[in-house]
């Protein structure tokens, strides 16, 4: 696995890393494991959650590589590792509404530095943010998020980097693939060609790919 991360200039201390998946579905666990083995420090993780159990993101956090998490739901049935570090003030957290998180990432990939959304207006998650009225409704200005690295889990991929996903394992993966300087992908199966109408992530967004099989 390690070779997919070799000589990648965007993998460095302090990097922002996007991690696809929702709960345990569609998470590039093998890439996360490979990232952990690099023993980087002060990473900012952008992800829907903060990891559960003793694997994947939770282990990466436990290893001390993560300085900050930007996510929507940093609690799960078993998010002990994150919660303990959080309670101890040893990890920074930015909680973002799930749709705003998805759109901030999409904006990052689409060259849109900021946009307005009604989500979170009047709530603590809009504190300190610019508020503006359009058509008599209040909106919050949100900034885009870009990353140095995106870790993506896909179903199939071809040599051009075209990807498909399987059912709700799609989730954040195609959005994050667009918003990182370097997008690393684990695919369950390398195929000769993903037919052009079936491509969900066009190869332009993919930098490196590795086949991991159906481990889920």
């Amino acid at each position, binding site marked *: 696995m390690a070779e997919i991360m070799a000589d990648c200039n965007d993998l460095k201390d302090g990097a922002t890393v996007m991690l696809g998946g*929702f*709960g*345990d*579905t*569609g998470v590039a666990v093998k890439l996360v494991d490979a990232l952990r083995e690099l023993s980087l420090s002060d990473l900012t993780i952008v992800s*829907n959650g*903060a990891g559960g159990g003793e694997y994947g993101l939770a282990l990466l956090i436990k290893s001390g590589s993560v300085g900050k998490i930007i996510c*929507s*739901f*940093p*609690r*799960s049935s078993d998010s002990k590792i*994150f*919660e303990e570090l*959080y*309670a101890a003030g040893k990890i920074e*957290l930015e*909680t*973002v*509404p*799930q*749709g*705003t998180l*998805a*759109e901030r*990432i*999409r904006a990052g990939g689409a060259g849109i530095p900021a946009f307005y*959304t*009604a*989500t*979170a*207006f*009047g*709530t*603590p*998650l809009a504190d300190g943010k610019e508020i503006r009225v359009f058509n008599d409704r209040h909106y919050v200005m949100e900034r885009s998020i870009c990353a140095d690295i995106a870790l993506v889990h896909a179903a199939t991929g071809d040599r051009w980097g075209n990807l498909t*996903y*399987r*059912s*709700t*394992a*799609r*989730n*954040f*993966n*195609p*959005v994050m693939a667009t918003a990182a300087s370097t997008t690393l992908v684990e695919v369950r199966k390398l195929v000769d060609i993903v037919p052009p109408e079936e491509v*969900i992530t066009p190869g332009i967004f993919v930098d490196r790919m590795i086949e991991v099989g159906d481990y*889920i």
Partner: protein
Amino acid sequence: MKLSSADIARYVASDISDGSYVNLGIGMPMLVSDYIPEEREFILHTENGMLGMGPAAAEGEEDWDIVNAGKQAVSILQGGSYFHHADSFAMIRGGHIDISILGAYEVAANGDIANWLIPGPRPPAVGGAMDLVAGAKQVWVMLSSHVSKNGEPKVVESCALPLTGVGCVNRIYSDLAIIDITADGPLVTAMMEGLKREDLQAKTGAILNFVPKCEILKSFKNEA
């Protein structure tokens, strides 16, 4: 006499029109899918990227690529579709979901809702709640009990807890009543059989209005 959560879910389901696109929050709102009237089709949206969500997967037959917003293994019905997170929340934020049904700690007379955070040491987690209450055409709140365990009203003049959204709740279904949030404040349209207006008011932290002839709510327990 109070409605059970299943009773409440049945009343909610009976108020949803055929063909509606509905997002059911985790927990009690999920019960609504068990009471879809036979002649109607609801298309269930789950914010992690699916329309046409079907029942939970049978034990032993879970496909962990097909999950709902609660990370439970579910299924997809005929006519369903998959999409990514930005597209899913574009549906929500863009006002395409007809009804978002959620639980709440508090709902205020003006439609403010607090359902995401009880201040404390645990990290604040919001998920998609703020997007749903701000984006859906209708926001309905289900309260398994009209008052909290300590007897405090959940329908209040103004929320004490951190808000999820402002002025966005359209209707409340509790174990005692169905209440529309109108420009003039909460309007009770249905009440548990045998309950008096003053009793409901006593359990409510905001001044209630009542339609002239409230519908009478009854437990379905004998039919279940």
